[in-house]
């Protein structure tokens, strides 16, 4: 076990950043942009995380995991804070995170739309050119706007016929 005395300023971040997301364990909370900051002063660590959606039920578990990982690494005083401003955006998912999602069969999100003062009504199904993460075909159809979690939509590939998930832009 690494002791607090033996750690460097960078390592607290690395330890927190390696925490897997409970819902998408193939990516870390740093890949997803959920981990906003890690500050270390005299062995005291303050990690700041941000919820993706208002009702994201994974937040308590993420906070718990981050705290436990840092404590096991020898940091005795660990505080996990929430930040809600600015709100999380799917644009914060790193390139590395996008590759990992695609490798796991989940299509990564497009850029989040720039929003004016009002959000325009979309009466037609959201049209996105989403490539199938398995065969690369763009002959895909959206089958549902909401999937196993609020942050994903369901698609089906018309070429390889496989259903897959798409992380929605937000």
């Amino acid at each position: 076990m690494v002791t607090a005395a033996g750690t460097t300023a960078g390592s607290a971040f690395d330890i927190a950043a390696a925490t897997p997301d409970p819902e998408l364990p193939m990516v870390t909370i740093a890949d997803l942009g959920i981990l906003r900051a890690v500050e270390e002063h005299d062995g005291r660590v303050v990690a700041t995380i941000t919820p993706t959606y208002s009702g994201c039920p994974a937040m308590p578990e993420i906070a718990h995991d981050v705290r436990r990982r840092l404590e096991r690494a020898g940091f005795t005083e660990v505080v996990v804070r929430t930040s809600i401003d600015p709100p999380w955006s799917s644009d914060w998912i790193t390139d590395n995170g996008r590759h990992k999602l695609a490798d796991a069969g989940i299509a990564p999100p497009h850029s989040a739309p720039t929003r004016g003062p009002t959000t325009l009504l979309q009466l037609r199904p959201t049209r996105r050119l989403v490539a199938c993460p398995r065969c690369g075909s763009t002959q895909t159809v959206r089958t549902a706007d909401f999937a196993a979690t609020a942050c994903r939509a369901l698609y089906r590939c018309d070429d390889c016929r496989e259903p897959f998930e798409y992380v929605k832009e937000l």
Partner: protein
Amino acid sequence: MHDDNAYDLLAENLDDHHRWAFGTGFVDPLEGVDTSVPDDVDASMLATYSLMLGDDALVYSHRLQQWITRMPELEEETAIANVALDLLGQARMFLTRAVKADPSRADDEDRLAFFREAHEFRNVRLVEHADGDFAELVGRLLVVSTWRLALFERLRWSRDPVLAAIAARAVNELAYHRDYAARWVVTLGDGTDLSHHRMQAALTAIWPYVDELFTTHPVERALGDAAADPAMAREPFDAVLDTVLTAGGLERPTTAPLGLLNGRAGRDGMHTESLGLVLAEMQSVARAHPEATW
């Protein structure tokens, strides 16, 4: 012990951090957020206002959850479950904001959600009713999310930075909810004779509760630009509804608005009997086992 598997972590009680029986790993959703009230904002009124917006989401989320296992298709069930979850998350943050603004109200969000009586709830009456059918579900969801989105597009500039941040997060969620509901209203309105008839009947049934949404409450007026004046939401609401109703070949109902009782409505704690039925179900476990953990 290997700690990379989140499901193992969920299953094991690894420390003394017991979980509340009524949520998953209940912790303060505003943990570490600066919740001090701006100097020129009345803290008690801010708490009351937070309760209004939180109770709308809490009660409506519960009504949506009652659709789970009753939806016509799995995809629609997943959609409604996610909408309900988004609203529950918004409710938790608003109720917590109420507690932080005025700690004399309650110890925490749990106390507010599970141990208040119906007359202490501040939600608008539209959200407390059970939907009679799928058409009423999507009709009510369209009205509620279009109204709430119009409110929050203003609230995101609130003088209270906490309300502003909650609203800024919620607008993107509400836009997804609204568009989902709008597509179904058009589909049913523009579908078969039967689906058209039922969609029109559903709109007529919920219409008496619509005017209440746009009535400025004295608390909202007193809070000024810390709140979002619902009267200002009427115009964007009407524009969206007109577009959707036209696309679905539906008529805007002319049903008369439900009256006030002694000048009071949902925002004053004056509810229909439907709210009592929601609370009886939602609060029963917490009240039977007030100290339960799992």
